[in-house]
């Protein structure tokens, strides 16, 4: 047996899941897709007394259009998001990024709520939630509350949830854009990003009206680069724009290094990806 011993419950409702977490007195862990938690259990880096399996709560799995927003249930699997025509038409940047989310077998199990809660700084969905300005609806013993994605990620692998709170759904506002791009480099396709950037732009002729920029893989959390967005709003568009944009991005971020890539390499990579992303976004699609 790889994992240490634990008790296992499969509640049928969110309320029952919260109750099970409360009964576990801080020794409980939530199991969603399990694609990050099971490795931790197998290594015995996590040794919860109780595993609360959300997979019995069917109403947590949905993709739904709500006015100018798309709501996604926390238990919706990566593969469903990847294949959803609704996501493809309403959240195209997310649709483009999904093939980079791990590998086929992991996408078949992994969930959006699990990925956001795990808060890996080099995972696509946390970055996309910042990029789109998503809101996470979470439920706990005190009821429901809403957390902006920008407040949710506190540090590497750390979110702002209270111990007995569960992410139940995420709302993504749709963005107006004239062009967008998603760029990522990983050591192996589908692995965690060494660096990645998402960009969208709105323009009137040669003037940039609005831009949205988020990056990941370079800091302890994914980052939305609001400063860069502000600078872009004031510039004209010409052949030098992708280069200037790459400068804005690299000067606003100081990349971390680790075993997989040095800080210098990541910083350089981010600049290259930023240039490429802006070229694509300005070409429009």
């Amino acid at each position, binding site marked *: 047996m*790889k994992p240490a011993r*634990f008790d296992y419950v499969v509640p049928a409702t969110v309320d029952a899941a919260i109750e099970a977490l409360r009964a576990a007195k801080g020794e409980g862990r939530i199991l969603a897709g*399990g694609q990050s938690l099971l490795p931790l259990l197998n290594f015995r880096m996590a040794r919860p007394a109780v595993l609360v399996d959300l997979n019995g709560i069917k109403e947590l799995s949905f993709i739904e259009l709500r006015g100018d927003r798309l709501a996604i249930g926390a238990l919706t699997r990566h593969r469903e998001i990847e294949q959803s025509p609704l996501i493809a038409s309403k959240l195209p940047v997310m649709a483009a990024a999904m093939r980079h989310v791990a*590998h086929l077998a992991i996408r078949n*199990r992994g969930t959006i709520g699990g990925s956001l809660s795990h808060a890996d700084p080099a995972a696509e969905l946390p970055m996309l939630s910042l990029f789109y300005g998503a809101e996470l609806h979470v439920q706990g013993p005190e009821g429901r509350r809403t957390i902006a994605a920008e407040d949710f990620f506190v540090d590497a692998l750390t979110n702002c949830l209270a111990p007995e709170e569960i992410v139940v759904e995420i709302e993504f506002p749709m963005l107006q854009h004239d062009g967008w791009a998603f760029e990522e480099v990983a050591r192996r396709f*589908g692995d965690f990003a060494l660096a990645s950037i998402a960009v969208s732009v709105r323009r009137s002729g040669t003037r940039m009206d609005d831009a949205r920029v988020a990056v990941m893989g370079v800091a302890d959390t994914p980052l939305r680069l609001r400063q860069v967005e502000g600078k872009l709003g004031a510039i004209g568009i010409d052949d030098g724009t992708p280069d200037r944009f790459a400068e804005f991005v690299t000067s606003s971020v100081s990349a971390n290094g680790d075993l997989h890539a040095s800080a210098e390499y990541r910083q350089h990579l981010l600049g290259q990806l930023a240039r490429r992303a802006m070229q694509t976004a300005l070409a429009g699609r």
Partner: protein
Amino acid sequence: MTTNISVTVNGTKCDIANVEPRLLLSDFLRDTLGLTGTHVGCEHGVCGACTVLMNGDSIRSCLTLAVQANGAEITTVEGLGTPEALNVLQAQFREHHGLQCGFCTPGMLMTGEDLLRKYPLASDEEIREGLSGNLCRCTGYQNIVAAIRSAAALRAEKTP
């Protein structure tokens, strides 16, 4: 704490009593059911050797608890074909020498089955992307890609 589970494996319903929740599906298949075709490599979701189908979707059996397969249909490499009658993908692996030491092969086959069913696999790039979660330490990828390409073409012929 133990539970009773009922899993359909390769078409046969298995009712197993007293399963510990911490038992991984991979160990359940190999140790409890004796189906050692599913290989266990890294046991943390990196190598893909333990890939099986659960309700038709490829999954890592080392990242799934046996109790989570309660009520599900599991297909392992033993469920694809027999030595006398290989299925299309297995036959193409043999034809193209898509295996060397054979350790990664069960995972490659199960991933390949899922890919063939869900993706058009029009290009080698799509096949390689689909296989990106499976490691072959012999680095025999060229022939694995060729085998899947060939199986995809054969399936496309059969189902116009």
